[in-house]
């Protein structure tokens, strides 16, 4: 099946082996659960996949409304999948509002599976339909499968004596059953999952299983016609090994634990709930057996304050939030930076400014990360590009923090945090440890300990309170580079500012050089990205190269300091475009650092880039 509108006449070889399905319904319809379980069965089938959960900010938006629609999209196939897919091939619409808001995205000729039972007059009017679209012929350009799933679910769960409302809750499992049939999937893992999930309420488990089986049986017995025959998507080729699905939030959490272990330190995590960062706090608070202490603070300032205190006392302090909370942490970040204590700050970016779009994704906190503190206050910034990449990035952030005695900002975003993808479980033995050596030697007679003495990385010594003979005072007031005592002198501030800047720039000597993800240095156009735009950029560049276009992909992990060779690489291309889910922030950094004529490609709709959008921009850049 084709994935984008403009490619429909000429189906691509590579796309024939991939399908995009979107489940959409009311926020009470359980679509995220359906999507999650469909993802699991997809992964177990050996397909490569990427998902995009997209839900409203309201916990329970009024039923049936357009803004209350919750959707889950999955792209899976027998080849490498990099994005959740541009346009769905199959849309499951559980009510009129879901159909109305999602139909415009469906590929022409795509499949609509709708719960006709939910297309009541009331729901139709809430969604703004005057006529029932399932009956008025307006869906003629699509393959429509209109089933009264509500009624069938009620019928299937009848033996369990549930109330009407309770019984209808199993509708999402009926839908999932049908989807499992459609893609020739096993039901057993979902049965198992339901039994565990409802272990305390066996009758609910049984009702859901009955609904799932009924949906599956419906597919088998109803004569649905050629278009709706089950199809098998073959397993994607993959390196041998153990795999699991992972979301970005899970991978970051595990990576932080691994990072602390590689540093040989207990980890302290301070957090305050905020979408989409809370998942990290939730994961870590279950893992106390790994030397993790979690602290739900009274606000984001307290969360980072406590993390700084813990680092000062010899743990690896970590804090996490999203844009608004990161803004609150600004002053404390400066404190960590000026007292030169290790700290990892995770920003799960969401649409801003202010409260913005809490549940939608954006990459608009790059300036905040690189520049967003008072004073000359540089800190390393690392950007995660995908859920599976998050694990390594978190380890890298921990490494830089302890080796350079500095706060490090780790940027991820709402899309990565929630999206799942298959992950080849890494062998932890393959990571080099970076054990911390606390400074413990007291100065000799007549000598004084200088907390701002520096090693070859310009890092200062880390002394744990409790160490005899090394009592000293640190703080946010400027300190003498030679004694560590308060020093306001002009010369000293100049020197300390230089040292702080050089230390962070020196990180560039200890990170990999920038590679070219696709193409080579002799290509005409470079598409430069960072963060979660990796997938769509990769696919777009891949497709354009297949068409013979001279375009390369560069994807930057180390956003600050930038890899040392990046400037030369960029200057080697005739043209540079920078797709970003913001108004052109990384583009500005690149222009500033290298005086290259980087051109922006911006999208701030709260949705990830579509491959087609980047393809079009590449074409325009090359031909324009």
């Amino acid at each position, binding site marked *: 099946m084709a994935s984008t509108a403009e490619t429909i006449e000429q189906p691509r070889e590579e796309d024939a082996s991939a399908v995009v399905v979107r489940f959409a319904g009311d926020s009470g319809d359980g679509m995220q659960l359906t999507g999650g379980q469909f993802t*699991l069965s997809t*992964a*177990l089938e*050996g397909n490569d996949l990427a998902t995009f959960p997209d839900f409203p900010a309201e916990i329970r938006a009024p039923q049936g409304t357009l803004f209350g629609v919750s959707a889950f999209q999955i792209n899976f196939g027998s080849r490498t999948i990099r994005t959740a897919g541009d346009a769905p091939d199959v849309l499951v619409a559980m009510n009129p509002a879901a159909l109305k808001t999602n139909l415009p995205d469906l590929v022409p000729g795509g499949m609509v599976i709708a719960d006709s039972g939910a297309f009541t007059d009331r729901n139709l009017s809430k969604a703004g339909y005057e006529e029932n679209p399932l009956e008025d012929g307006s869906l003629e350009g699509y393959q429509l499968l209109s089933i009264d799933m509500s009624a069938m679910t009620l019928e299937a769960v009848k033996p369990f004596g549930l109330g009407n409302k309770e019984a209808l809750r199993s509708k999402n499992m009926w839908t999932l059953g049908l989807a499992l049939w459609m893609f020739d999937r096993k039901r057993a893992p979902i049965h198992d999952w339901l039994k565990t999930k409802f272990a305390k309420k066996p009758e609910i488990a049984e009702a859901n299983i009955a609904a799932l089986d009924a949906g599956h049986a419906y597919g088998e017995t109803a004569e649905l016609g050629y278009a709706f025959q089950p199809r098998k998507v073959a397993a994607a080729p*993959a390196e*041998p*090994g*153990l*795999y*699991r*699905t992972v979301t970005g939030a899970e991978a970051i959490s*595990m990576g932080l*634990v*691994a990072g602390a*272990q590689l540093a040989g330190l*207990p980890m*302290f995590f301070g957090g305050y709930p905020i979408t989409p960062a809370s998942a990290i706090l939730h994961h870590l608070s279950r*893992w*106390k*057996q*790994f030397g993790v*202490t979690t*602290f739900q*603070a*009274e606000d984001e*300032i*307290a*969360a*980072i*304050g*406590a*993390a700084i*205190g*813990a*680092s*000062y*006392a*010899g*743990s690896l302090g970590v804090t996490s939030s999203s844009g608004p909370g990161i803004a609150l942490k600004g*002053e*404390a970040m400066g*404190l960590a930076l000026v*007292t030169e204590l290790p700290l990892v700050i995770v920003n799960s970016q969401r649409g801003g400014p202010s409260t913005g779009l809490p549940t939608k994704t954006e990459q608009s906190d790059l300036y905040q990360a690189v520049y967003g503190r008072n004073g000359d206050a540089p800190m390393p910034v690392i950007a995660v590009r995908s859920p599976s990449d998050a*694990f390594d990035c978190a380890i890298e952030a921990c490494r830089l923090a302890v080796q350079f005695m500095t706060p490090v900002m780790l940027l991820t975003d709402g899309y990565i945090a929630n999206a799942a993808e298959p992950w080849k*479980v890494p*062998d*932890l033995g393959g990571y080099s440890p970076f054990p911390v050596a606390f400074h413990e030697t007291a100065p000799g007679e007549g000598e004084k300990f200088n907390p701002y003495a520096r090693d070859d990385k310009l890092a200062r010594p880390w002394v*744990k*309170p*409790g*160490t005899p003979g*090394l*009592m*000293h*005072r*640190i*703080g*946010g007031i400027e300190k003498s580079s030679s004694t560590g*005592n*308060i020093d306001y002198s002009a010369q000293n501030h100049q020197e300390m500012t230089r040292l702080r800047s050089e230390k962070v720039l020196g990180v560039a000597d200890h990170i990999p050089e920038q590679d070219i993800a696709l193409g080579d240095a002799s290509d005409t156009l470079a598409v430069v990205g960072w963060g979660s735009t990796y997938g769509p950029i990769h696919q777009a560049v891949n497709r354009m190269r297949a068409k013979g276009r001279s375009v390369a992909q560069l994807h930057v992990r180390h956003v600050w300091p930038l890899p040392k060779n990046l400037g030369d690489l960029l200057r080697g291309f005739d043209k540079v475009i920078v797709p970003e889910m913001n108004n052109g922030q990384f583009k500005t950094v690149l222009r500033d650092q290298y005086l290259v004529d980087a051109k922006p490609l911006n999208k701030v709709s709260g949705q990830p880039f579509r491959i087609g959008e980047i393809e079009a921009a590449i074409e325009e850049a090359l031909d324009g």
Partner: protein
Amino acid sequence: MNEMTPVKTTLKDWESDQEVRWCPGCGDYAILKAVQRTMPDLGVTPENTVFISGIGCSSRFPYYMETYGFHTIHGRAPTIATGVKLANPELDVWLITGDGDGLSIGGNHMLHLLRRNLDCQVLLFNNEIYGLTKGQYSPTSRVGTRSPSTPFGSVDRPVSPCAFALGAGARFVARGIDVNKNLSATLKEAHAHKGTSFIEIFQNCIVYNEDVFEPFAAKKTADDTQVWTVHGEPLLFAKGEKGLALDTDKLELKVVDVADGDWEAAGVVVHDQTNRGLAQMLVQMPFGDFPVALGTLYCDPAPTFDSAVGEQNSAASVGKDHDLQALIGQGQTWTVE
């Protein structure tokens, strides 16, 4: 605070080599000396002691102590102290804050520190003014305080630090005066208490709010203006000629005369430091009609936050697989051959 074998130190061991830079005559000097003098009596070591402060004149304090010290940011010392103590509960943590630092910008953190009952000592230097920023009125300034930002007098009502602390659930609340010799005894009691020990210290800012506490702090009139609370002793003042009794109709304290030392006959209340209601009444007595209550007003230990966190961390680890490799490979997995 911690139980360990007492260590012998002298006053000198607690003095750093830094020149003290408060205005001459500032009450902070007396508090510093009182703390430095008290430390040897606590049997603790400088290396195991951490002073953490926010920002303000008072918050310069850690630089003058030969201990570990962290001069943090305005109002946030409680947050840093929380991280320090959770990361290493063995450390003896002292928090130094001002009325602005601890009750204005940092009021929220103070509330949560107290309700959580983190094991540490909080010394709130109350000078009823923002000293460091040159004398603006503070949340403890009395109505009508004239300052650079309130040239016509402040109009908002002040907070009572100790009433706030009790309301927040503090388990140890005390009051002292910078130059009063009793401060050392109060510090010792605070240190002996496990949990957040909150001490409001009336501190004279000689430059911006000189003698604002003089009406009750002055030595000459102290007998009549101060009531020092001692657990198990009657609440007497004015050389035992007056006492505090309960007005049962109004459910508040009243001043009664004590004839011939027979305080029982006068109905004078015996101080019970575990009685929260009594503590509330003591801290809220309006000065003028009443003396000012000083010393350990309330002390009723409860489990500390740091010990609860530590216990849960250990309990939640029991019987769990400590192998991170196993964790990352868990869940629904599949193998590609």
